[in-house]
């Protein structure tokens, strides 16, 4: 490449970095100015919808960013297929090991989605990505520790949560391993994103930046849509209706599953949230909340839709719901 071309390319890259910097800096200035001059009083429900949706985004964004950075690390900085080489060849044993990857990557569920995408891009199967996605938010040290802190004298809740999540993730992973065509499970858009890039001019840093941009691009709109949906449901569905079902063994489990779906709380702290309900709801219902919530919620479904087909999401949701009910009933009648 001629020296003048290299200089021109470097100048162009510098220019676009300035644009990127200016974008955030400009928005920051707008935010400072609007705080002084914009004073709008909205109706309470609309204002609460905005507060709730914004809270989902502001709480999830750091985890999503961390997840994207981990995804980039897995794809660019780990030697290709190195992680796979460390894992057993047998499918059951592999998925069992993958269930515990959350120990190494202890981010909450919304951060795990970009990591799962990165694993598929690294060559992991769809079934393995599903197993990881369902197990990792629960089988990680932070979640297990906070569960123990919230229920120090009820060790069966911690055991039921960990063992239940491990079983459900691996059973669903095994069912998805029977799927012959990845096109039935992965979106066309994601498959296109995963196609091998034939560009040898990238350095590792350039490749990392490129992946960061593309993952942010794919995930952020879904996060916003998920946040607005979760906010709308929160504003429109009276929670007191669900909480009135606490006494019944089966209905309490269903109520807590619906609550977990709506609340979309981070798995690292959900045990403290559900602690307040532990006196009015059955133990099985509490365990159901703790297992179902990290696997499926409104926000996660919107994020997962960037990667998995609607049919796959439906299957995952139905299976997780059924297995969680069985687990909850088992805990209610077994302990």
């Amino acid at each position, binding site marked *: 490449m001629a020296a003048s071309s290299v200089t021109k390319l470097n100048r162009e*890259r510098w220019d676009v970095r300035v*644009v990127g910097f200016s974008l955030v800096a400009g928005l920051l200035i707008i935010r400072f100015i609007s705080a002084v001059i914009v004073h709008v009083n909205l109706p309470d429900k609309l204002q609460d919808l905005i507060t709730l949706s914004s809270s989902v985004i502001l*709480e999830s964004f750091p985890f999503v960013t961390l997840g994207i950075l981990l995804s980039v690390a897995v794809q660019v900085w780990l030697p290709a297929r190195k992680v796979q080489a460390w894992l057993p060849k047998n499918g059951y044993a592999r998925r069992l090991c993958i269930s515990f990857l959350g120990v190494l990557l202890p981010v909450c569920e919304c951060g795990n989605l970009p990591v799962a995408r990165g694993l598929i891009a690294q060559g992991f199967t769809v079934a393995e990505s599903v197993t990881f996605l369902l197990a990792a938010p629960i089988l990680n040290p932070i979640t297990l520790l906070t569960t123990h802190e919230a229920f120090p004298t009820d060790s069966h809740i911690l055991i039921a949560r960990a063992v239940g999540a491990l079983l459900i993730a691996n059973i669903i992973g095994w069912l998805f391993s029977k799927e012959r065509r990845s096109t039935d499970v992965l979106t066309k858009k994601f498959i296109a*994103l995963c196609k091998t890039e034939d560009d040898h001019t990238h350095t590792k840093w*350039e490749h990392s930046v490129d992946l960061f941009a*593309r993952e942010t691009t794919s995930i952020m709109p879904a996060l916003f849509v998920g946040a*607005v949906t979760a906010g709308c449901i929160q504003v429109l569905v009276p*929670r007191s209706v669900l909480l009135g079902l606490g006494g019944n063994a089966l209905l309490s489990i269903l109520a807590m599953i619906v609550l977990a779906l709506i609340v979309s709380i981070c798995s690292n702290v959900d045990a403290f*949230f559900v602690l307040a309900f532990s006196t009015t709801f059955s133990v099985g219902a509490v365990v159901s909340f703790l297992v179902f919530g990290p696997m499926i919620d409104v926000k996660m479904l919107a994020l997962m839709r960037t990667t998995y087909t609607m049919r796959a999401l439906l299957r995952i949701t139905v299976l997780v719901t059924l297995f969680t009910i069985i687990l909850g009933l088992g805990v209610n009648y077994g302990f």
Partner: protein
Amino acid sequence: MAFKGSKHVSLGLALAATVTAASLWLSYTNKLNVYIGSQYDWFALIMAVLSFIGIAASTLSKKHAHNERQKVSIPVIGLGLIAGALAFTLLMLQPKVLSSATALQRGINAGGLNLATTTNTASFGATNYSQFDIRDWASVLSQATSESFYTGKTANLLGFVSPAPGNDPDVFYASRFYITCCAMDAQPYGVPIYAPNWKQHYPVNSWVSVSGGFIENPHKNSSFPIVVMPTKLSAVPEPADPYER
């Protein structure tokens, strides 16, 4: 394998830039706690800075995105508008805490009342009730309904005004949201305050400081048999940390 191309570079990055700018501003002005628990403040700030760096560097990849034709459909436009509207509010509107509308919708004191789960359990059964907060007193009220139990006990409360459901016009709730993670999981708790004509002096959602003992409600048919009779009731500004943990 590696990812290749994308169709929504500008929207996704613009949304990320908006959240980054909002996070940095909220962190600088100490208003992140309107949305998320304070345990996440530093994490949110660090990740916002990393995101800032990533976004600034990421505009390089526009070069690739521009090589692809944008395929725009009505659902994509609709979803883009929804995301854009929320991004606009993040950037332009003042952060506001959840109102009594959400407190009533979620059910005040419906989130489970048990002194074992409240923060000041060590004091229950002892003589020191001065540290009890709204949730603690709501728990006590749900368990002890005899007026004699409350003799000599004084509640000191700070909360926002929520209308008390039912048929008692002279009672309002001094209420507070308790959060674990973010506003999505906020649970409202409240203590009934007896104050005839309260609406004239303390609008719904305004903040009040209440101090007083407990009495049997003069309205025998009320849903609140025991209420706080304020010896001191005054309007106060919204506290810097509006949610309890």
